[in-house]
């Protein structure tokens, strides 16, 4: 079957369960396509021969009751994988091989999936274009020299280019939804506390959340079902009743109330985004849902709040990369000199910028004005959503203020880069679930996404809305395989 890699996850599972395809055949197909796609630079670490061995082993004694039977998949290189190098896109971890497995990836392997390799990402997930990675930019399969979004850029590129049927990313301020939007795929950022953070290289602990990325909503729901679990090893993990998201998935959203927040009509928003949003509203109406105008008055403050809270936490979380215990170490005259050289050479410019911002906002004399105030505003932003959810079941917004941009276009303008997260950041600050689905194309033919934001723990509802809309939108990604010689 030459078109194995074109199949969705659900199709692959069905074919493996029906014994029409073996795990080995499927794995080899994705390995082959991945090998032909090196120009995308989606992988940091390939684990192809081990993957084929594991697939063969699976086929010898296949357990077809598992949710991901013999399915190969690559994961973002922010998840620690036992005995496989884990870099977080950074030079400082370029030699780091964990002796342990993250809970989320362990959940995936427990359901029969097989690791293909580790996918590129912005360094320590700090970026919106994958350009901050120590391992170089990732190409968006949509067009040459187009960013795939970030920080889960290797993940979005790999799914869109069908190098992996599904993947997982992490989302701190939009790092799953924005790249999903830029590459025409589906990405879900779950409720904070839904997926364990154990074994995920930390960026900003109070915002980080792992989530699934897939070609369609159903695949996304299934992968979410696998990765979402209560974990005692993560003190912020929440023990709530989790749905069978894929089994309970329905396109019946009749009578659901969908909020349209007026504050998301930002100045200078391209007309095509405005039009996409209107189209989205029409789709949900078509599905029998009710549209309600709402207000999220503190939306404007979300971005500055995020760029205080996230760097503050990052500045502390990244203190452990000091050259003493593991990772890169530069020689120094003494301890302080070693620290300075290790961290100056080991971290890239964006990471250093955020460490400095974070250190500054936590400093005595500035703490109250920045960090404490940001925490108060964060509470107000959460209150906005709480108020809105008294009237509506979910909220519909664009995923990003624009389509994907060219590599290098925004590297010298961090603020314009940060503005990319304007629609996604409030969701992280409020700890809510949000999903981005491909909803159309701009004039250049680049994909555009719509975001559905849910109540906490209400992933099933936004998956259902996304599922219903997906049917109406009938999106087709325009991918030409331009990178394959």
């Amino acid at each position, binding site marked *: 079957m030459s078109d194995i890699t074109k199949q969705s996850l659900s199709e692959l599972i069905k074919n493996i369960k029906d014994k029409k395809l073996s795990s080995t055949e499927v794995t080899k197909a994705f390995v082959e396509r991945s090998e032909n796609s090196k120009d995308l630079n989606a992988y940091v670490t390939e684990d192809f021969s081990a993957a084929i061995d594991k697939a063969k082993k699976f086929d010898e004694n296949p357990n077809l009751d598992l949710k991901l039977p013999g399915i190969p998949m690559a994961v973002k290189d922010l998840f*620690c994988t036992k005995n496989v190098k*884990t870099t*977080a896109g950074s030079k400082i*971890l370029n030699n*780091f091989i*964990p*002796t*342990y497995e*993250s809970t989320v990836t362990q959940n995936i392997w427990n359901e029969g999936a097989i690791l293909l390799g580790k996918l590129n990402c912005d360094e320590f997930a700090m970026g919106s274009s994958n350009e901050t990675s120590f391992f170089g930019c990732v190409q968006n399969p949509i067009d040459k020299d187009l960013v795939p979004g970030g920080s889960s850029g290797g993940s979005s590129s790999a799914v869109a280019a069908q190098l992996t049927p599904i993947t997982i990313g992490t989302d701190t301020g939009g790092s799953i939804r924005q790249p999903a939007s830029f590459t025409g795929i589906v990405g879900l950022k779950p409720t904070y506390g839904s997926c364990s*953070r*154990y*074994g*995920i*290289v*930390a960026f*900003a*602990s*109070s915002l980080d959340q792992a989530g699934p990325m897939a070609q369609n909503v159903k695949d996304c729901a299934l992968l979410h079902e696998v990765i979402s679990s209560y974990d*005692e*090893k*993560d*003190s*912020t993990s929440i023990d709530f009743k989790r749905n069978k998201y894929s089994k309970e998935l329905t396109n019946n959203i009749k009578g659901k109330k969908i909020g349209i927040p007026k504050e998301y009509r930002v100045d200078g928003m391209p007309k095509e985004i405005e039009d996409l949003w209107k189209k989205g509203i029409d789709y949900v109406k078509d599905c029998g849902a009710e549209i309600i105008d709402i207000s999220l008055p503190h939306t404007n403050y979300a971005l500055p709040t995020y760029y205080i809270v996230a760097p*503050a*936490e990052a*500045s*502390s979380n*990244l*203190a*452990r990369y*000091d050259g*003493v*215990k*593991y990772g890169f170490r530069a020689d120094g005259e003494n*301890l*302080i000199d070693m*620290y300075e050289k290790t961290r100056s050479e080991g971290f890239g410019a964006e990471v250093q910028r955020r460490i400095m911002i974070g*250190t500054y906002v*936590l*400093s*005595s004399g500035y*703490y109250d004005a920045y*960090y404490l105030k940001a925490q108060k505003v964060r509470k107000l932003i959460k209150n906005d959503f709480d108020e809105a959810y008294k009237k509506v079941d979910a909220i519909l917004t664009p995923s990003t203020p624009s389509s994907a941009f060219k590599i290098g276009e925004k590297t010298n303008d961090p603020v314009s880069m940060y503005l990319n997260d304007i629609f996604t950041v409030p969701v992280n600050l409020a700890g809510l679930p949000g999903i981005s689905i491909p909803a159309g194309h701009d004039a250049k033919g680049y994909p555009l996404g719509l975001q559905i934001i849910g109540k906490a723990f209400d992933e099933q509802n936004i998956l259902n809305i996304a599922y219903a809309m997906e049917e109406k939108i009938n999106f087709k990604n325009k991918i030409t395989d331009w990178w394959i010689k």
Partner: protein
Amino acid sequence: MSKDKPEYLINRKDNQYEVVIGLEVHAQVTSESKLFSTSSTKFGAEPNTQVSLVDAAFPGMLPVINEFCVKQAIKTGIGLKAKINKRSVFDRKNYFYADLPQGYQISQFKDPIVGEGKVILDMPDGQKEVGIERLHLEQDAGKSIHDLDPKNTFVDLNRSGVALMEIVSKPDLRSPDEVNAYVKKLRSIMRYLGTCDGNMQEGSLRADVNVSVRRKGTKDFGTRCEIKNVNSIKFMQMAIEYEANRQVDLIEDGQSIDQETRLFDIKKNETRSMRSKEDAHDYRYFPDPDLLPLEVSDDFIEKLKLEIPELPDEKKKRFIEKFKVSPYEATILVSDNETSNYFENVIKKSDVKLATNWIIGELFAALNEKNLEITESPISAGNLSKLINLIKDGTISGKMAKTVFEHMMEGDKDPKKIVEEKGLKQESDPKALEKLIDKVIDDNREKATEYKSGKVKLFGFFVGQVMKVSGGKANPQLVNEILKKKL
């Protein structure tokens, strides 16, 4: 309390200075595993053998609070008669050091688990109350070892992440003696509770000492210096003595005192500046986002209250009322749980007065000499009880008892057996004694006549003779009685 209690003052020319001391005691929580990981806390293991991925701060590792340590902190708070905060927050204290793998210490800054409390000190001139400001939980750091290699520093992370309670006193202490009493009392309370073993040699208890001085009679506090990480009571006292005098000398010299952190050099017996206020670290405290605020219910606290044993203050009161021991004796007997248990075991079957004297006197002296704890005493409470009963029923004299006691210290033998084996039994048979006495009077006819004619001083001579003839075994009381009759 007497008004003319002996004050600890530093005198210079016409001025008298009072010393103001506050202590930040770091007490290691007695617990099998660390504050946020499951690694063992056992002392003395090979370096870096008790280190989990969390303790070594590997990427993606997360802290999970050890509930037992929380219980220990709350129990200690109850023992300090302090307010237990139902909501407390763990903060990150950020700084770089080779033995601090995370690059931050998880501590409690703004919202500690225990609030204000108090400790009562028994000073020779009466009781003194010392205020407790707060108690919070925090992680210990690892250990940097600088003297194993000429060029490199070695790091041992066995201690990294071990739970500590930082107990901050109010600046209520006024002398090295009070500091001594305070640390001992604090240690005693925690040992009663089983929340800290108080072992200073193993570093389970250490303190940062804040010292300032002011002219006697003034209200405002002087500028304080903090002496870091002093690990014995003796060194605390020496450091305070030195530091207070240093500050007084500066003031007398017309200079001002810089608020700074100092180190105590035990070899030179002096404190040295470590860093000034200007160089103080900015620790960038903020709530640890990996941990939710710690919330405990009333029910949780109430259940822990039921686990609190009788504490030294209450026990002392009971000993005085029930056993009629003096306050001084009671203070000594309750100083630690093991001593009071020993005492209560001894007096189950023997005389309280004698038991008190023997424990505080002979036993403590003997243990001290051998550098033993009461729990290591070669003489069990049961055997000491037997010894006391042998005295009480006249089988042996007090003097003999000391000999028996010495034998007992060599190994835990039944005193009755020792008495038999060594033939130490006292001669208390009146007939046998009469025979002896008759013979002594016979042999000393002249002296007996002199005695009868009024030379009463000679009575002692006869007692001495009888004891000599009996080989020291005659019951001195009976000898006295019979002699009086016979002479």
